[in-house]
């Protein structure tokens, strides 16, 4: 398996098969005398903006913190040991409802989309 080829930019789903996002970034741990090890994936706008460059990453982080509070100032992380299946999508043993990943979608649902009749 090649990390960048086979994991990065893959669709992420939780154990209910809800589409959470894409693998926007990978987090590796450097260990003394041993090869580095992947410990988590990152997803969300900050992780994505960092791939375009350090500057866009900082701007997005600042914007996210302003809009969503301190909790949104860093990219969302999912620990690698929670990975359950790598197929068309990459499935993690987690429930997205217990994370902050969908905070903005929920905000949209409660404040904008949900208020339009018929939603």
């Amino acid at each position, binding site marked *: 398996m090649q990390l*960048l080829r086979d994991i*990065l*930019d*893959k*669709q*992420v789903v939780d154990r209910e098969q*809800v*589409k*959470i*996002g*894409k693998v*926007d970034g990978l987090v590796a741990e450097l260990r003394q005398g041993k090869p580095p090890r992947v410990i988590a994936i990152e*997803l969300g706008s900050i992780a*994505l903006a960092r*791939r*375009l460059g350090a500057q866009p990453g900082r701007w997005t982080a600042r914007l996210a913190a302003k809009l969503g509070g301190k909790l949104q100032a860093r990219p969302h992380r999912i620990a690698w040991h929670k990975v359950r299946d790598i197929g*068309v999508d990459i499935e993690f043993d987690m429930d997205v409802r217990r994370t902050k990943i969908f905070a*903005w*979608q*929920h905000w*949209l*649902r409660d404040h*904008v*989309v*949900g208020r*339009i009749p*018929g*939603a």
Partner: protein
Amino acid sequence: MKKLLEISLGVVTSVGGFLEVGSMATAAQAGALFGYQLIWAVVLGTICIIFLVEMAGRFAAVSHHTIADGIRERFGFNAFIWPLLAVLLVNFLVLSAEIGGVAVAAELATGISFQWWALPVAFLAWLLLWKGTFGLIEKGVSMLGLVTLCFVVAAVMLRPEWKEVAVGAVPSLPHHDTAKYWFMAVSILGASISPYLFMFYSSGAIEDQWDKSYLGTNRAIAGLGMSFGGTISVGVLIVAALVLGAHGVTEVDDYNQLPLMLIPIFGFWGFVLFVASLAIACFGAALEVALQQAYLVAQGFGWNWGEDLKPRDDPGFSLVYTLTLFLAAVPIALGLDPLKLTIFSMALTAASLPLTVVPFLFLLNDDRYVGKHRNGVISNAAVIFVIALGFVLAVVTIPLQIFGGT
């Protein structure tokens, strides 16, 4: 039997997607000014789109990825962002043109200026997406699209010299208005080879849960559906050549001239048929483009998506098509000429092709996605041809726009 039904539904659907304001306007303009001489551009565009649509469907059926998913996953986000931005922009202009097409039809029918119709049209389209399901939109709206077959009937009833029509299917050099000739050829190609068409098709294949058993169905739908659509475009072109050209209208620069096309054949009903065809074809396309815009963003960022979900279950997705529809209505509501916008956006579509078609060459030859269903020599030759064509179009579009645009 079920397969046969599926194929015929698919064919009908793709006709609905193929024929829209772009192909109607470009074919009518080309016919009026150059007679049958530009039929080859319609034929060439149709052959190209058959190949691309077949590949998009095969890719989705085998790999269970849409084209947008595939591009992001295979090339990474930093590469994906370019086709993403290009398609979002082109789709936006095309959507605006389609809303303009429906608005013009409404003006022709009621006498109330098209500007007033832009927002109501966008609202109606939004309402259908908001409340409707994918099946309703895909099948219901495109069923109505069959009314556009009246152009084929009209073309046959006009008894054209079929030999001359056949001669037009072979590319030839223009005898007059050289820059305009090539600009029109580019616009016709852009109207036929629309990225939204094959991207929408791959999303539809995922929504309809296609798998490998659909490969034959897919081939039949791509081949027959696009050929049908191309035939109707040729019908429009022939009618325009024989009716508009014969009445001395060589320059279609005002959409009020267009309904004249069917009147000599069907009388008053010709007017009604034209207005209905324009309205339905453009409305169907507007729905598809708006949905495709939301698909593209949702697939690109990995959000939940699906036209069958309730808006509250995919708020990001629903918000994208809502915003797109209403923003796209704004230029028309402000009085931007729908016909000019159409021709312009078709040329820009042609110029954006390399960004969306180059990935096909990689995706459809990658074992990890399509396994043993990878492209054969002919399909690869077709992709390379479209890419080459796309690069030429991208380079020549802007100069031609300046010298040959309307």
